[in-house]
């Protein structure tokens, strides 16, 4: 926590949002990819902001590196892997699909399916009760 506080204290703490000072890409497709990517990564200093929005110096460094990688023609997957290699899955706002996250991604849909099956049963049961008593 000390680490985070120290970094914060030096870098216009609080909730001043950062605006990107990287030069925009000439190709709007690359620019769109770059913007999408910087919104996908979590700033590790201000951990409740995206790399795109964070004012931390580290976030500015990340943006610089991502900008460079997009320019150099790296793919989105490669760039994500670059970040994950250094910081782990924590840095991704979209949790990866892996064995430990199957429950996370499938859970809501399984739950919905299960619930709808139960509803079908209940409704059928009630309909039968309806025939019995007015």
């Amino acid at each position, binding site marked *: 926590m000390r680490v985070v506080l120290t970094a914060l204290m030096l870098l216009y703490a609080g909730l001043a949002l950062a605006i990107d000072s990287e030069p925009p890409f000439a190709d709007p497709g690359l620019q769109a990819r770059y913007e999408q990517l910087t919104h996908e990564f979590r700033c590790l200093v201000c951990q409740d902001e995206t790399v795109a929005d964070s004012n931390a110096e580290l976030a500015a460094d990340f943006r610089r590196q991502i900008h460079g990688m997009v320019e150099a023609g790296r793919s989105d997957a490669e760039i994500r892997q670059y970040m994950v290699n250094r910081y782990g899955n924590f840095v991704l706002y979209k949790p990866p699909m892996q064995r430990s996250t199957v429950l996370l991604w499938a859970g809501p849909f399984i*739950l919905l399916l299960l619930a709808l099956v139960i509803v079908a049963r209940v409704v059928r049961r009630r309909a039968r009760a309806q025939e019995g008593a007015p």
Partner: protein
Amino acid sequence: MIPELGHLALILALGLATAQAWFGLVGAQRRDGVWLAVVRPAAVAQALFVLGAFAALAYSFLTCDFSVAYVAENSNVALPWPYRITAVWGAHEGSLLLWVTVLALWTLAVARFSRHLPQEFAGRVLGVMGLVTLGFCLFMLTTSDPFMRLLPAAEQGRDLNPILQDPAMAIHPPMLYMGYVGFSVAFAFAVAALLGGRMDPVWARWSRPWTLTAWLFLTFGITLGSWWSYYELGWGGWWFWDPVENASFMPWLVGTALVHSLAVTEKRGAFKNWTALLAIAAFSLSLLGTFLVRSGVLISVHSFASDPRRGIFILSMIGVFVGAALTLYAWRAPTLARGGGFEPFSRETLLLLNNIFLVVAASSVLLGTLYPLFMDAFGLGQLSVGPPYFDAVFVPVMLPFLILLGIGPYVRWKHGDPAATARTLRIAGIAALLAGVVSLILMHGEGALMLGAGALLAVWIGGSAFIEPLAYLRRRRQGRHTTLSRATLGMCVAHLGAAALVLGISVTSLLGIEQDRVMRPGETASVAGYDFSFEGVHPEAGPNYEARQGIFRVSRRGRAVAEMRPEKRAFTTTETTEAAIEPGLFRDFYIALGNPLDQGAWSVRIQYKPLVRFIWLGGLLMMLGGILAASDRRYRARETAAATEYA
């Protein structure tokens, strides 16, 4: 002297709350009229003492009494007086006192408006609320005392976080708490019914206005929070799926299910188990929210300072309250009399589906919010679950729900007529399809499908919401004697709010434009067909800050549209970004300053946000719908005869 009196008031309130709980719950169990008679006065006295404690803390803030540690940490001589009051709930201890104060207000309301309820039942309701008061007073007095002295007194005090010096931020917590704490009333009603072993339509009619009122405050509080975050934080967003945002959204989803489930219990005596469980769940999620903000268990922008001791206390409270309630539920709910049967195509079925979808949605939000903790606790590694996950999961779950939203009001109870329903909804359906197809074609690109779906659903729900009021007006014009109850009108208004919300979210997400760029004085940027001309940044002084203000002139095809002045404000402790917003019903312009670069150039973010205001308009309409529904004539208590049912 005043802080000590405040502290004493809390201790007295604790004692009275204990009496309130004891005499209420045990008195009802023993059917002891004398004991039960004590409950209401005890509750009123306890509430008044709590209000006194709050007044004492507010007074300490107003007079800048820095010999009170909490005041010294959250206030400053330069703070304008209205913000001295709002600073009372700016941090942990004070916000707890606000929690208990809001609970005191609800207690007074219940004490006042429960005279028509059977004495035992009212005793149980107030008794449960007394237990909650007891828990929170104990929590404050043992771990989080706002009246602790700081000796020697601080001279200046520390400044309140500048982003909290704002009107919307000031009332956002009280409104949220009115909602969270209000669900304790619904909880108390459910527990009282379970204890008494009976839960019938009359009970539902009593419970509903209280629940609706809590729900509408929560709706307002969340809407305020989203709006505040948009205009204050400088990122142009309105929802981040942050754990504490989710902590307010989950009780809202469950609360929405609850008010609809109550309708079924009221009209048909059915869904009792659902209603009881939803009432318990809504309050449990409120307590969970309280826990999450103060425990440090999740990373969040809202977190108050965390302390494991406090976390342990709240967790124990959750265990006790929710555990006891669920045990009671498991024991008593199976014995509740079943309600009437209904056919597969009926309003009951649709409201059952309503419950299902809302509960699954709330569960999904809970799953995503807690998954990082789950992974960490089980040694499976660290993970972040952010907006990409929630958007990917929440939207598909909600889509079928939104379609059903339009249908439900026009299906009869018990025995629906599909042909009649289809006939009623024909025009709305066609309009919706048209809107969807037109949007799809007009956008023709990435996101066109989502935009089409959004437009379709918004017109569908909105159209459906207008049908009943229009039919009423038509009947009036025909000279027929007809009524439109406030409850029905409230439903239509609230559903219209949902339509506005869906439209606002779809359009702003899919058609909004955000541009980060470097601009030099004299340069013009073109965004969404508008020209933004940057004229440079100059210094400005504020009451307790120094600002750097930029000037942008917005024009369209040569005609001036607006002048916008974003700022960077430097306070004593931090610096903030004040975005310039040019509001409009159909679009907002949004400009935030970034960082100064050489030769007067600045990095800036310019955003075009179409229909973003519809999001909060939707929230306000839902709140208005709740007000209308809660004030329906049939809830105005005038009967004394109903008491005999339980006597």
